[in-house]
């Protein structure tokens, strides 16, 4: 479904991505992990069009989207959430989704799926962090995506809330066939959700495999702990 081919990106002297190649299959739940500054969010930004790569290609559903603007990538089925939760605080929960779609039925369904139906008329500014994370997910669903990129969706949540969100993501994956790529630092919570993990460090992909495989990988241990 998604193929990132030898993508590189520099910000001045900083190499954020150095020839990274990643493939995501349809219906897959993939985790993307790595220490801070390893290039995970930059890779997300390259896929969604918020950052243009210096080299390499991004192919989605067989189409080269490397130079397509953000809004067109959304239209072909790529939705994302942000590391710092993004929402429109002065708008109600329902109006936040109205920006994404004019289909009221779809809005209703998305709110129901994430458990925010009872808060549809509440200004988004009054939501808790847990609810905001769910609102972000609902917004992604309202865009009728094929691929959802979630950037640290569990950050700041309590253990129980993170587990609930993980279960919700898994159920959406199985019932609706949505493909997910999830960046997360809470590895124990992430590993309960994803089937495959890609590990990045210093702008490069250093490992790939099942959660069990990558935690045993010496390069991954070195990246996280500084020793193997």
């Amino acid at each position, binding site marked *: 479904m998604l193929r990132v081919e030898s993508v590189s990106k520099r910000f001045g002297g900083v190499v954020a991505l150095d020839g990274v190649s990643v493939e995501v299959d349809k219906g897959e739940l993939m985790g993307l992990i790595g220490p801070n500054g390893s290039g995970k969010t930059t890779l997300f930004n390259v896929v969604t069009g*918020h950052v243009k790569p210096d080299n390499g290609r991004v192919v989605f559903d067989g189409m080269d989207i490397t130079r397509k603007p953000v809004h067109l990538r959304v*239209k072909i089925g790529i939705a994302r959430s*942000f590391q710092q939760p993004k929402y*429109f605080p002065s708008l109600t929960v329902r109006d936040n989704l109205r920006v994404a779609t004019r289909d009221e039925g779809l809005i209703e369904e998305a709110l129901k799926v994430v458990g925010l139906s009872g808060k549809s008329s509440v200004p988004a500014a009054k939501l808790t962090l847990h609810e905001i994370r769910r609102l972000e997910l609902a917004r992604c669903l309202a*865009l009728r995506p094929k691929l959802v990129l979630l950037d640290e969706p569990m950050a700041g949540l309590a253990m129980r809330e993170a587990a609930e969100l993980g279960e919700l993501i898994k159920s959406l994956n199985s019932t609706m066939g949505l493909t997910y790529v999830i960046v997360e630092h809470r590895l124990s919570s992430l590993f309960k959700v994803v089937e495959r993990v890609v590990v990045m460090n210093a702008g490069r992909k250093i490992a790939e495999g099942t959660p069990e495989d990558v935690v045993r990988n010496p390069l991954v241990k070195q990246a996280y702990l500084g020793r193997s």
Partner: protein
Amino acid sequence: MMGSYKPKIGPLRMGGPRALGDFAAIVGIIAVLAVVPFAVTSSYLLSALSMALLFGVITATYDFASIRTGYINLGYTFIMGIAGYVAFLSTSSPQLLALLAAVGGALGGVLMALPGFRLRGPFYAMATLIFPFVLIVIARTMYDVFKGDDGVPVPFWLPVGGPYAYYLVFSFAVVSLLVLYVLIRTRFGTILKSMSEDEILVESNGINTNIIKLVSFVIAGTIAGISTFLYVSLQGVMSTAVIEPIPLLIYMLLACGIYKPGGVVWSFMGGIGLYMFDIYLRGATPELRLAIISAMLIIIYFLIRGRHAAR
């Protein structure tokens, strides 16, 4: 839930006590303005009120396109200038004049939106400030065509000061205000408001924000263009005074910031009030006017600062 996203304006939504309050305010102000000619016999005052109404409409369009989207525009009088010159340099037929002014206003709106494709915040504001000054320089330099500060004489077709002219302006103002009010209650209006909060997130919702900016400025420019045509018709001359950003822009900013920025209704009323206040001030000394306008600038500063601090 899969499928392609279709950007449309979306259905009109009327709901909530805040919306009802705005609607009550619209009905109230329309009712009061409708009976003005019965209570005011002075043709000067009626003419001044007509011009204030038109300034109220122009302020509401500014609120709609600039304040609601967060693209604070300091050169909005440029739209008035383009609309006025396009119309009055082309023909003397009133019907054609209105149409040409609308086209000129829309063109001005397109030109005002273009810097917003690349610039935001103070950079956009400063870039737009250049527009009216360039137009003023052109109008003065090409005196043979534009007649500079003296202005192009406007064909006399509107009986100034009479109830006929007032009700024509009043009808136009009511229709314009209702159009803008209805638009902000649609999905398009919600998108305009969301742009002032987080444009990156709006793009991430599959919306081409450049198109939204362009459409909002074209709508605002078209209405502002027709307003300018009526305004200049009442005034009798199209000159650089219509384009001068000060003090008109200060009044617009203040009117939009007083209450519910981007809500159209209160900026319309604020525009009327401040224009009448400006007429009252014309009798004051330049020092007093300077002091009052400076005080207004300070108020605007705190209004804008307060709005941004709340985010």
